[in-house]
């Protein structure tokens, strides 16, 4: 019989043996590729203008904005970058990044939007101002929540979705293309994301509703 204490002691020794078998960190010199360094530079630059971390934690694990231009998702290429500003989508193994490219209109104030249609029992609870956007919460008596948020594109705007959704598909909200992310049903909510017709704002709604209800919510988004 092996006790937990024995296991802990042996695990600590094994851990020490592994560290002792590796070179010291200071001895491990490697010249990282320009590609890797670019990612890091961009990382540190963006860290100075964070957006996502201002959202509540539970939302941050399943948050995204949408990349949409002329009714289609952009892939990142030089021509697209040069032609106009837009939200672009990049798919990675474990997450999707949506980031803004180009020069957005320089406006200091952001137009306020709201959900004009809500499922029965829901009402507006609170609004939080983000750096370049808003984060609105709607609740019902049972504690269910609808999150509606939007962000203005600028050089620092970049949002992510972690792969805890089971399916992502393109849908229409009126004449605008949007993406619906079906959550796994346990830890996340469904997401619907799209951008404004001018491509300067990214919208998303997060709630535990069906695709049809999410579309109805999105269709009701209007300027205040």
């Amino acid at each position: 019989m092996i006790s937990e204490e024995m296991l802990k002691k042996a695990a600590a020794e094994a851990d020490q043996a592994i560290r002792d078998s590796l070179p010291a960190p200071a001895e491990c010199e490697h010249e990282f590729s320009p590609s890797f360094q670019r990612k890091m530079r961009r990382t540190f630059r963006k860290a100075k203008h964070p957006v996502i971390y201002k959202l509540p934690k539970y939302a941050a694990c399943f948050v995204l904005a949408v990349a949409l231009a002329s009714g289609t998702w952009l892939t990142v290429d030089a021509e697209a970058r040069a032609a106009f500003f837009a939200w672009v989508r990049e798919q990675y193994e474990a997450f999707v990044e949506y980031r803004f490219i180009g020069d957005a209109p320089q406006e200091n104030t952001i137009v306020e939007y709201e959900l004009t249609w809500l499922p029965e029992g829901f009402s507006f609870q609170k609004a939080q101002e983000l750096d370049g956007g808003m984060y609105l919460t709607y609740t019902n008596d049972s504690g269910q929540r609808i999150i509606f948020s939007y962000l203005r594109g600028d050089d620092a705007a970049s949002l992510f979705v972690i792969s805890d959704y089971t399916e992502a598909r393109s849908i229409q909200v009126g004449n605008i293309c949007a993406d619906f992310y079906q959550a796994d049903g346990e830890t996340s909510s469904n997401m619907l994301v799209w951008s404004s017709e001018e491509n300067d704002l990214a919208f998303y709604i997060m709630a535990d509703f069906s695709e049809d209800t999410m579309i109805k919510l999105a269709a009701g988004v209007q300027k205040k």
Partner: protein
Amino acid sequence: MLIYMMMLETPEEKSLFEQIYLEYRGLMFHVAYEILHNEQDAEDAVHQAFVKIAENIKKIDAPVCPKTHSYVVTIVEHQAIDQYRRLQKHPSVELIEEIQGTNAHYEGDNDLTKCILKLPARYREMILLRYHHGYTVREIAKMLGLSLPAAIKLDQRAKSKLKKLCEEAGIL
């Protein structure tokens, strides 16, 4: 690829992450390269490891200490094996779970330690994270990017394999 920095909430956390990055990136590349034997793939694994480290930055107390040292090695080894799996045309769970990972030399006399070091990397990582670092299976699932059921299964397999090695060594 910015997800990790965007997950850091306070200036202290950013500083912690930056220090970890500066201190261990070379070592992490070394560990990844030993598994992948390709610089680009190893850099990708290092990057993915930093994503996971940032996601779990609150689990790290100090940037330069033995615990953080072994933690980053464990995380990058896991990511490198993941990267290896992605590069295989026909990966199988059995094959991936047999990869040995970082070679360790142990000259002590604790037979149980020897058995842990004989474990395939996937199983050894689970044992070390659970019994040395003290994380729960749920926490480990998050830091390794596994679903909870997958982590539970990995935990069971790791313990089962360790038991078998202990029986062979005459410990049980």
